[in-house]
């Protein structure tokens, strides 16, 4: 009995937590931080328990949780299968790490209204977890908007022109969510249901499979999600909004928001429309994979042109979205495995890199390439962990970045889509150039330490980031390698069961 409730505790813990933080967080300086870490810790523990449960019964079927004990045609249900159990664990884990990481930085960025900041933080995580666990297409819309609203408010609390950048994100995000909602409306007109478990049988029934309305619904939902995940050429809002944001905000938003949209896309493709419908009725897959290849190339070249590390990372996110969309649309087991695995591995890599850059910014007050000067001597631990994240992004074994690329390239070769394979290899190469340039600046470039002229190694003072920042960074870097080493277990124990039979 107690185990069965884990599915809802995953979402309720941060939701109730955000309420408690807004009510009591103002009472004491440290209370809101402790409440946030506690509620995300509960949520993470529940995702681990659910993951174990789902993995144990992976062959039987997904876990259903009926809210208020109302069965599906009338009530709303949460459905947790191996696919979203994996994504839920990733979201809860990374948000817990970022919450711990935010201790010093968030207090410095929000001296007066820390509890408001943490309320939005918890609300954003609750929305993201809800999207992932939901078994109902309309609920996905509502929860998308909850997390989007929280992210608008968080991103706007940044520096410089954050308000203008956020405003553009609001407009784009609202268009994306509205198109998704319109698509859901078309689906509802034709099928009369919003439940993900019921939709595929209706859509693939003989009366509806050729329906133009269903096709329009599919196009609207896909375009809406592509805007939300910043899929090239709909990515214009992302670099500005994420670069201007405060450090802890970008550490939270950058790894999670786009990845959750990718998850919803894969869920809609596999669970609602099903692959035969997409590949045979729509017949768009090659065009979309070409677009994804273009996204990878454009994102990588965009990253090459940047002089700010954070901005460079945001362009890498655009390229990574191309990886996942391309992998999902290749339409074979290896490509889909790569796309699903990459959701988790990219979340970890992005979180590690953003946290490392955040720690450097915390000490230098700067996130330009020049901030890297002498970082290997001043902040050896941060720099070493940054290297782990960077190697994962380039795709060096045994990091998880290597294995997701391995599956994606394999999928591209099986599908005979050499453009996608080429784009992946090119992007790895460009990532190598990007990060080795940073290593070079960090290792060899001359630097000043406050008045002391650089006269050799002896004068350098080690000035590390605080422990509350280093610890989450260390865990994320270790997880990059652990997830990489346990790839075969993740793929055969979880991802394999989320792929449709006979693929």
């Amino acid at each position, binding site marked *: 009995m107690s185990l069965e409730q884990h599915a809802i505790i995953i979402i309720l813990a941060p939701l109730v937590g955000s309420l408690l933080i807004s009510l009591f967080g103002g009472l004491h300086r440290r209370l809101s931080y402790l409440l946030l870490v506690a509620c995300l810790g509960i949520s993470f523990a529940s995702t681990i328990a659910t993951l174990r449960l789902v993995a144990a019964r992976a062959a039987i079927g997904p876990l259903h949780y009926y809210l208020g004990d109302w069965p599906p045609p009338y009530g709303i249900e949460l459905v947790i299968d191996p696919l979203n159990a994996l994504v839920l664990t990733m979201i809860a884990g990374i948000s817990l790490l970022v919450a711990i990481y935010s201790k010093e930085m968030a207090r410095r960025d929000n001296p007066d209204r820390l509890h408001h900041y943490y309320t939005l933080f918890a609300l954003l995580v609750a929305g993201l977890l809800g999207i992932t666990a939901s078994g109902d297409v309309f609920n996905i819309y509502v929860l998308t908007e909850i997390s989007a609203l929280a992210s*608008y408010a968080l991103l706007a609390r940044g520096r410089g022109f954050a308000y*203008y950048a956020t405003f553009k994100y609001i407009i784009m995000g609202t268009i994306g969510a509205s198109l998704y909602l319109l698509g859901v409306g078309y689906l509802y007109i034709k099928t009369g249901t919003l439940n993900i478990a019921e939709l595929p049988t209706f859509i693939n029934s003989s009366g509806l499979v050729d329906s133009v309305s269903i096709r329009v619904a599919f196009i609207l939902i896909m375009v809406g999600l592509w805007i939300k995940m910043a899929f090239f050429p709909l990515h214009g809002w992302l670099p500005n909004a994420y670069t201007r944001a405060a450090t802890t905000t970008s550490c939270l938003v950058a790894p999670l928001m786009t990845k959750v949209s990718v998850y919803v896309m894969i869920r809609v493709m596999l669970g609602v429309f099903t692959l035969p419908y997409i590949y045979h009725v729509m017949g768009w897959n090659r065009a979309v994979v070409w677009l994804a290849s273009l996204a990878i190339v454009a994102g990588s070249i965009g990253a090459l042109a940047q002089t700010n590390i954070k901005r460079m990372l945001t362009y890498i996110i655009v390229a990574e979205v191309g990886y996942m969309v391309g992998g999902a649309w290749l339409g074979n087991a290896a490509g889909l495995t790569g796309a699903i695995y990459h959701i988790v591995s990219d979340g970890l890599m992005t979180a590690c890199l953003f946290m490392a850059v955040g720690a450097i910014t915390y000490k230098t007050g700067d996130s330009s390439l020049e901030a890297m000067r002498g970082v290997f001597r001043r902040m050896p631990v941060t720099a070493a962990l940054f290297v782990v994240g960077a190697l994962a992004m380039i795709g060096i074994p045994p990091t998880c970045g290597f294995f997701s690329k391995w599956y994606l390239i394999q999928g591209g070769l099986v599908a005979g889509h050499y453009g996608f394979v080429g784009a992946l290899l090119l992007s790895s190469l460009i990532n190598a150039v990007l990060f080795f340039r940073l290593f070079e600046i960090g290792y060899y470039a001359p630097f000043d330490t406050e008045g002391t002229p650089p006269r050799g190694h002896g004068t350098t003072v080690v000035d590390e980031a605080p422990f509350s920042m280093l610890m989450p960074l260390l865990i994320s870097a270790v997880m990059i390698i652990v997830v990489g080493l346990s790839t075969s277990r993740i793929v055969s124990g979880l991802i394999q069961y989320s792929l449709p039979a006979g693929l």
Partner: protein
Amino acid sequence: MEDLLAYIISRYNYWAAIILLLIGLYGMIAKNNLLKKVIGMTIFQAAIILFYVSIGDKRGATIPILAHGHDGAHQAVEAAAYANPLPHVLMLTAIVVGVSTLGVALAILQKIYRVHGTIEEDEILETIDQ
């Protein structure tokens, strides 16, 4: 020609929603004033809400409340006589979402005005370039 006209008239609710959607999209893309963009966004959302509300309605249907629900529970319920309440209920949530988005957008617009001293997009871009 008459066929086309009949075709358009028979689905006038969809046409109204599409026209409103396009007006909203035009406002968001083409207008230079950020407040007008917000107005466009609101029209865009309202179009979708009206679209949903219109699909729940039926000709000659009444509101979905059973007149003698408590004592005449054995009476057969004729679904065709009632409007479909589900799209309407969904839109209650969507209206709340729309209002919240509008609220956040207006709050950020106010902040933009304080930082940049204007809400005209080209003038804001000029201040960013400097």
